Structures are given as C-alpha cells and as structure tokens.
C-alpha cells in the first residue's frame, strides 16, 4: 500500500485525513509491515466508505484488511439514522453473518492422538462440506420462516443443542427484528437443503490444541487450558445469505439515485436506514443472521454426536459464537454523546469490553471472546474485547489472517495433495472433498496471523488470550 498520504498516530494506527468527498477520516490499524503488505485497494475502498451519507467518527480498517467488495474485508463503519445514515448490502457482504464458534472439549491432546484418524474420518463423513453437499434437514415454508425468526433458539427447540448454548451466542442466539417476509422465495429455495452444511472456500471445522495462554484470567473465564482441545466451526448463512446479498445489492445500486445517493463504487450499494428499502434489507439481513446462527447450531449438534461416539462422557460446552459479516444496531459513545448507530462489520468481529450490558453473565467481568481464524496449517487465536476508553472502532476487532496471495496465485504455487502431505508430516490431518480447494486455501496464501493478532492487541482493539494450533481440519 502507498502509505505516503497517511499520518502515523501510533505504532499501530494510521490516519487518512478527510478530503474531497470524504465526510470523515479513514483509520487503518496495523504495524508498518502489515500496512506495507496491504493492497492499495484497501485504502481506496476505506476512503470510499468514508464518503457515505451519515457516517460517524471514521471509517476503520482492521489489521487483517484486504481487498473486498465496496468495503474492504476487515472494514468497520457506523451510520446514524437521524443524520441520513445508510445501510449497505455491500457493507455486510454475500455471506451474511459468517462467523466462528468454539466448543470446549476438556480433552487433552494425548486423549485424541490414539483415535485421531478415525475421529477425522468420522467428522468428514458426518459434517456436510463442499460443493454439492446437502444437509439432512429439509424445511417446509412454515419451518423455514420459524428458523429465520428464531435462529439458534429455533435450532435448540428442535433438539439441536441445549438451552445453555444460547447464553454463549451473540444476541442470545436469536437476532431480533428479523423479517422472513422480506426474504425472497429464491433465497428460501436456495437454503432448502443447506441447513447444517459447512459450505466451501475458507469455511472449516477444526479440532485445535491450545498451545499458549497469554491471559490467564480471561482464559480461565473462557474455560481454556493449555494443552486442551477445542473445536472451531467457521461458516455462515449459506445459500440464503448469498441470495439476499445478491438481490439487495442490485436493488440498492439501482435505487441509489432515487435516494439522492452518489455511489463512489457500485459495490457500496446502500439505502437510507429510514427508507422502505433500508428497513426491508435490515429485516432480511437479520433473518439471514438467524439462518447462520441456526446453521452453526446444527453443525455443533453434528460435531457433538461424532465426539460423543469417541468420548461419551464429554458434553462439548459452547465457548462462544461470533459473527463477522453483519450490520447491527448499537449504542456507542461518540465524543461524549450516546448515539444509536448501525455498525457495519465486514470481515470484522464485535469485541465488547468488560461490563458491556450485552455480554453474557459468564463473560461480563472479562469481555467478549473474539476468534481469529487461521487456515489449516496456521495457528488461530482467541482474544477478548478490550476495555480501551474511548473504545476503538466501535468495539471491533479483526476476524482472521486475511489472504496475502489470490486463489489464482495459490494454485500456481501449490498442489492440494502436496499441502495435505506437508501438513500430515506436522501431525495435522486435513480432510476435504477437493484437492484444488485445499491448494487455493494453502496456509502460505494467508498473512501471518500472529502479526495480525499482535497489531490488534497493541492497537487496543482486543487483548491476546490464547493461541491454538490445528490438529484436524475438515475443509469445505
């Protein structure tokens, strides 16, 4: 990235002052080497976001930011409905409420070594993953609407999980304000047989080992212990969310001139929050959040069944479930005034600090768990929302390592079989229906997740809690 126009506010915060049509400055978090590696498109895109109507404070890019659609992936922006603020389908993205949930097993690495191969095979057989995979749950019209209104609460009521799970999910497992009527027949049809499926691309179910604990108090609150095994599930709202993103992006792009909105980039398609279109999108997007929460809940049920076969005395308690492609209505202190804002996090995680009223009781004293996903051979991280005052980037943090090489470049550099064999030599079992998919997702195609985590920690976005290494990866 060309950093010549940026002013350095600290070791990990860089500011592009508002100029031209920018309504607010743009702020990019990361150390000098992370920024130097970022695509110039990140700067172009975050500058464009700063031009949108009703934006408050600044347009933010997280340390894992990379070239996205309209918003950079790793972009955060908040809009005030009372000041003509917008909601953007592009600012949420196609995979609405894509996110990560972690399950605690209480097992140690040594407990699973003897059954590792069988466990991997069983997970691969029982977790529908990849193109063309379908779930076993077929929803009729009435059940589909109930799922879209109820989210993980609906799933638990159907027997996929236990009520205690709901306390460990953002929004208590059910996003309020969902409107199944705002979801098209096409979107519902696309979801018909996709409940309880992982998807493909960078989505995964990983069995991981806690290899380092950096914050003993937070780790204890989260139930994390050195050497123990956790399960991470990364996926989203599947076909339903993709179709909602597709349809509203188009509708908002076409309607923008009618709303008096000049789009610096068609992909930033948006509508005023208080418009009919804005409200309809919010209703559909919230339904898609519920779809993602229900989907991850069903996958949790499937993972528990597999583990229950090998370890009948383990319950696999839910640590937490966080989404990283959302727009949520939240209250934030902006320059000493509490304001109701619509916070877009596109490839960014909500990261409430301790004592935030929306935290579950178990984490009220420590802060919200934040999950930073890796990719097969790379480590993942668990962080906790920082209590920095004033809060940074509307209490947001990064969500992953972010790609450093395109899929195109990765395919030229690696073969799937070679990646799988290399990881096997390191004791990591990768199971995927597609060798090419594995090559495209090769660990070397991602940035150094440790550098991203260090930068987020240093910038006061979130604090380091634990580092995890993969043991088994089920890749879509």
């Amino acid at each position, binding site marked *: 990235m060309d950093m010549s126009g940026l002013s350095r506010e600290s070791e990990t915060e860089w500011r592009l002052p508002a100029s031209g049509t920018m309504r607010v400055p743009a702020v990019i978090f990361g150390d000098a080497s992370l920024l130097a590696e970022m695509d110039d*498109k990140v700067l172009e895109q975050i500058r464009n976001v700063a031009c949108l109507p009703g934006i408050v404070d600044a347009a933010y890019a997280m340390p894992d930011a990379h070239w*996205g*659609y309209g918003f950079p992936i790793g972009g955060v922006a908040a809009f005030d409905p009372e000041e003509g603020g917008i909601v953007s389908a592009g600012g949420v993205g196609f995979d609405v409420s894509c996110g990560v949930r972690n399950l605690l097993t209480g097992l140690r690495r040594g407990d699973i070594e003897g059954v590792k191969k069988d466990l991997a095979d069983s997970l691969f057989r029982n977790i529908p993953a*990849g*193109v063309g995979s379908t779930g076993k749950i077929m929803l009729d019209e009435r059940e589909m609407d109930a799922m879209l209104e109820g989210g993980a609460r609906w799933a638990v009521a159907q027997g996929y999980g236990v009520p205690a799970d709901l306390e460990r999910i953002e929004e208590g497992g059910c996003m309020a304000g969902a409107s199944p009527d705002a979801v098209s027949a096409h979107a519902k049809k696309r979801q018909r047989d996709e409940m309880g499926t992982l998807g*493909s691309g960078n989505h995964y179910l990983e069995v991981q080992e806690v290899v380092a604990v950096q914050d003993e108090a937070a780790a204890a609150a989260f139930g994390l212990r050195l050497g123990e095994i956790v399960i991470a599930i990364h996926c989203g709202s599947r*076909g339903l969310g993709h179709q909602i993103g597709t349809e509203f992006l188009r509708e908002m792009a076409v309607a923008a001139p009618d709303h008096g909105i000049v789009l610096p980039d068609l992909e930033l398609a948006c509508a005023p929050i208080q418009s009919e279109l804005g409200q309809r999108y919010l209703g559909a997007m919230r339904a898609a959040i519920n779809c993602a929460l229900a989907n991850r809940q069903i996958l949790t049920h499937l993972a528990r069944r597999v583990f229950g076969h090998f370890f009948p005395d383990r319950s696999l308690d839910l640590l937490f479930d966080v989404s990283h492609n959302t727009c949520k209505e939240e209250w934030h202190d902006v320059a000493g005034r509490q304001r109701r804002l619509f916070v877009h996090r596109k490839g960014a995680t909500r990261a409430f600090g301790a004592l935030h009223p929306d935290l579950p009781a178990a984490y009220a004293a420590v802060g919200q768990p934040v999950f930073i996903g890796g990719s097969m051979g790379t480590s993942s991280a668990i962080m906790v929302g920082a209590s920095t005052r004033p809060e940074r980037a509307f209490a947001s943090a990064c969500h992953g390592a972010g790609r450093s090489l395109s899929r*195109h470049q990765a395919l030229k550099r690696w073969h799937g079989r070679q990646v799988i064999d290399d990881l096997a030599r390191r004791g990591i079992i990768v199971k995927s229906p*597609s060798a090419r*998919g594995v090559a495209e997702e090769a660990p070397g195609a991602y940035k150094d997740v440790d550098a991203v985590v260090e930068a987020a920690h240093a910038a006061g976005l979130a604090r380091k809690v634990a580092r995890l290494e993969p043991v088994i990866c089920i890749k879509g």
Partner: protein
Amino acid sequence: MAFQAGAEHFPHGADVGVRGIGHTKAQAFEQAALALTEIVTEIGSVVPEEAVEIECAAPGDGLLLADWLNRVIYEMAVRHMLFGRFMVTIENGHLRGRAWGEKVDRARHVPAVEPKGATFTALKVEQRPDGAWIAQCVIDV
C-alpha cells in the same frame, strides 16, 4: 479478427475474477459463464445432458452480466448442477439463455469451491479496439 473467443480468470485478493472474450457481446457472456464453471471444475468434465432456460433483463450491460451470472449461480445451487455449455442472445437489455449441464458428481467433478454471487467489482462489458467483446466481474467464493 486477431483474437480468439475464450474464458479466463483474473486475480482478486480473496476471490476470483471471470472474463469472457467473444466476437459478440452475447458470446462474451457465454464465455464468462464458462469461466464461472471453471472456478468449480474443469469444463471438460461436465456432460451437457440437461438444459435449463434462463431469462433476465437489466437497464445496462454491466448489471445484465451480473444478473446473468447470478442466475447461473442460482440454478447451480438449487439444482446441484454444473453447466458446461451456454447459449445466449441479447436484445434491448433482455437476455435469453440456455445452460446445458449435469448433476454434480463429487467424485468426477472434484468441485473446488462454491460461487456465492457475482459482484460489481471489476464489472465491465465493453468492446475493445480490436473488436473483441469483454464481459467480466469478480465472483465471491
């Protein structure tokens, strides 16, 4: 003309760009759809045994391309099919298309990744000075 019709990919940070090159706008759209399939599998592995009709309309060529590719993605998703041959006609912003393909066979097609949607990023439909029509955009996968 010095160019050849064809389908190709171009790089994007996280996803994949598809580009169709054709002697006509319609052929560029057909080639862009072939490039879409090539994200998932090799075109040669798809047997064109079943045809699906697709129609869409849009106020501009760029939106029409996005609509066309999104309809193909939709049909792939709900029918669990891959398409290896396309035929398109375009008149006054109205597209009529036909896609031939077959059900996904995970053993034979070894599908790499699932397209989520056609984006407006790098979206372009234009005729080059050498007469070639280009139809391209980035696909979110």
